[in-house]
């Protein structure tokens, strides 16, 4: 516990001295936030509130870049070996990465919420408990994904390639950048197999419909379960030595991390719950401004309640 605290402190300290950190953890998410809120949503509060969930999800998901890169760098430079010869365990190191990342990412999420409320006058930020839970699980689960990526790649180059390969579908097919309702039906279907889609939908429903944690139990449980298995796996596959290569069985184990969302994807593809929710939120912000405001304020607490059949694709 003491080691874990000391290592967390070190990671936070190092992050503040790192220019790359400032760019990826502070400059980029805020640039993205202002691009969406100021340009795409044209500062219209109702539209900003529609985009707020996806923007927060985008910020939270970015966690995996920094964590995978740092861990691989530490291994390549022989920094991990130095810790290995001291009484430091792999889980001390991994858990400190996750917690340091959490401590550094959460304030940016809070700032984005404050900006949305006070600069863009978003009428309500939704259920604060749901927001807190979903953001926290998002930061931890995508952080753990970064640790797994670090365990299955041997060099920084490989890490960055894998990061890109995962990042692009995660942001483009989940509703984080383009609203899910915008996307063709087949892409939507595919999106239901991605963890990102559940984070985006959970946060969007929380902001737009003030969804309670209970109504978001699918998102919360699936992401929590995913966080647990990715973290457990990253500890199993952890390598201290730069020359230690990825064991072949590792790649199979990593494939196992996809299982929870493969199963959930099948269920959600049958029920269409997420697609329906995304569609309703989308229609709410594309409808006339006069009716939208009372609508967004007037649909509290029971977002999963209305069972209207999903509307046709607006495109």
């Amino acid at each position: 516990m003491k080691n874990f605290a000391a290592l967390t402190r070190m990671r936070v300290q190092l992050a503040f001295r790192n220019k790359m950190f400032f760019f990826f953890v502070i400059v980029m998410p805020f640039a993205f936030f202002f691009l969406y809120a100021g340009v795409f949503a044209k500062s219209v509060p109702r539209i900003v509130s529609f985009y707020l969930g996806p923007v927060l999800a985008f910020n939270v998901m970015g966690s995996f870049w920094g964590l995978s890169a740092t861990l691989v760098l530490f291994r390549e430079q022989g920094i991990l070996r130095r810790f290995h010869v001291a009484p430091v365990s792999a889980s001390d190191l991994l858990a400190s990465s996750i917690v340091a990342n959490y401590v550094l990412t959460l304030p940016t999420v809070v700032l984005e919420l404050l900006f949305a409320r006070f600069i863009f006058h978003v009428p309500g930020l939704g259920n604060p408990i749901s927001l807190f839970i979903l953001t926290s699980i998002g930061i931890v689960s995508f952080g753990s994904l970064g640790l797994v990526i670090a365990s299955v790649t041997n060099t920084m180059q490989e890490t960055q390639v894998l990061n890109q390969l995962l990042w692009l579908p995660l942001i483009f097919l989940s509703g984080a950048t383009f609203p899910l309702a915008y996307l063709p039906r087949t892409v939507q279907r595919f999106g239901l197999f991605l963890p990102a889609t559940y984070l985006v939908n959970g946060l969007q429903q929380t902001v737009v419909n003030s969804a309670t944690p209970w109504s978001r139990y699918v998102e919360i449980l699936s992401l929590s379960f995913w966080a647990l298995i990715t973290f457990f796996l990253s500890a199993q596959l952890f390598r201290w030595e730069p020359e230690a290569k990825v064991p072949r069985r590792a790649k199979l184990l990593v494939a196992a991390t996809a299982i929870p969302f493969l199963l959930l994807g099948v269920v959600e593809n049958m029920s269409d719950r997420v697609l329906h929710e995304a569609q309703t939120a989308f229609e709410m912000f594309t409808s006339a401004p006069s009716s939208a405001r009372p609508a967004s304020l007037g649909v509290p607490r029971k977002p999963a309640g209305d069972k209207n059949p999903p509307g046709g694709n607006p495109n």
Partner: protein
Amino acid sequence: MTNPILQVEKLVKRYGDVEAVRGVSFNIEEGEVFGLLGPNGAGKTTTVEILEGLRTLDSGRVSVCGLDPQRDSEALKQEIGAALQATSLPDKLRVIEAIRLFASFYKRQRDAQELLKRFGLDDKKNSFYGQLSGGQKQRLALAMALVNDPRVCFLDEPTAGLDPQVRREIYDVIEELRRDKKTVLLTTHYIEEAERLCDRVAIIDHGVVIALGTPRELKARSGGATRIEVRLSKPESNGTLKTLEGVVDAREVDGAFVLHSQRPPQTIVSLVKHLEAGGNELISLEIATPSLEDVFIEMTGRRLRD
């Protein structure tokens, strides 16, 4: 005789088909500075990293402070200190932070300020690791190896890649450890280092200990003979060179002839006479006092330096 603090028995380690360590055995007594001397790739680092618990062994038995490095890894790490090869720290970590961070991992801790002072890093304590010179980084590595006041200290090639002056600075630090009666296992491929710093030395080559003893004993083993190295314009046979006056051993190493002589002046006179008679010429001649290098040449027919 007391129980040795570190024991290695018939240690074997393979990497795929390559046997890096092939049955190494030695013991280290408490308070001793013990050297593993050998060329690069001899198996020194592998041996040390097994003792530190960083690598597993394939067969044999090792014990450090009465502990098994694999089974009792956690307890062992509290007792040992190590300056590894091929390691570093985050560039943006300050010197004092590094010392304090690592000290915080141990039950027994030494004062960070005092360690920095002792290793001449006091005025660098707020510098980032990335700003330190090679010698300063190495001194920090040694200071960090001592943060827990270890019972056994492993120094893996502590002066490799440093220029001679910095190397001497490091020697002073290690000599101080010896005065403090610290148990140290040092690996090196520098003869001078082993001779100057170590109470006992194991010479290791191709994963095998080829000689073990105090530097004085080892040198005595080569008969205390002076080494005479000559380059000739025409080749000579080792057999004839062996017959020269005072010569106990003659062999060709990398194109030069290395003679070991009990009576160097007489050997040189008879060598010159012999060459003149055969119409051969002396291109260069070097005389060296006996060193561990001679032991190595005698055992392997090669030089230790690469």
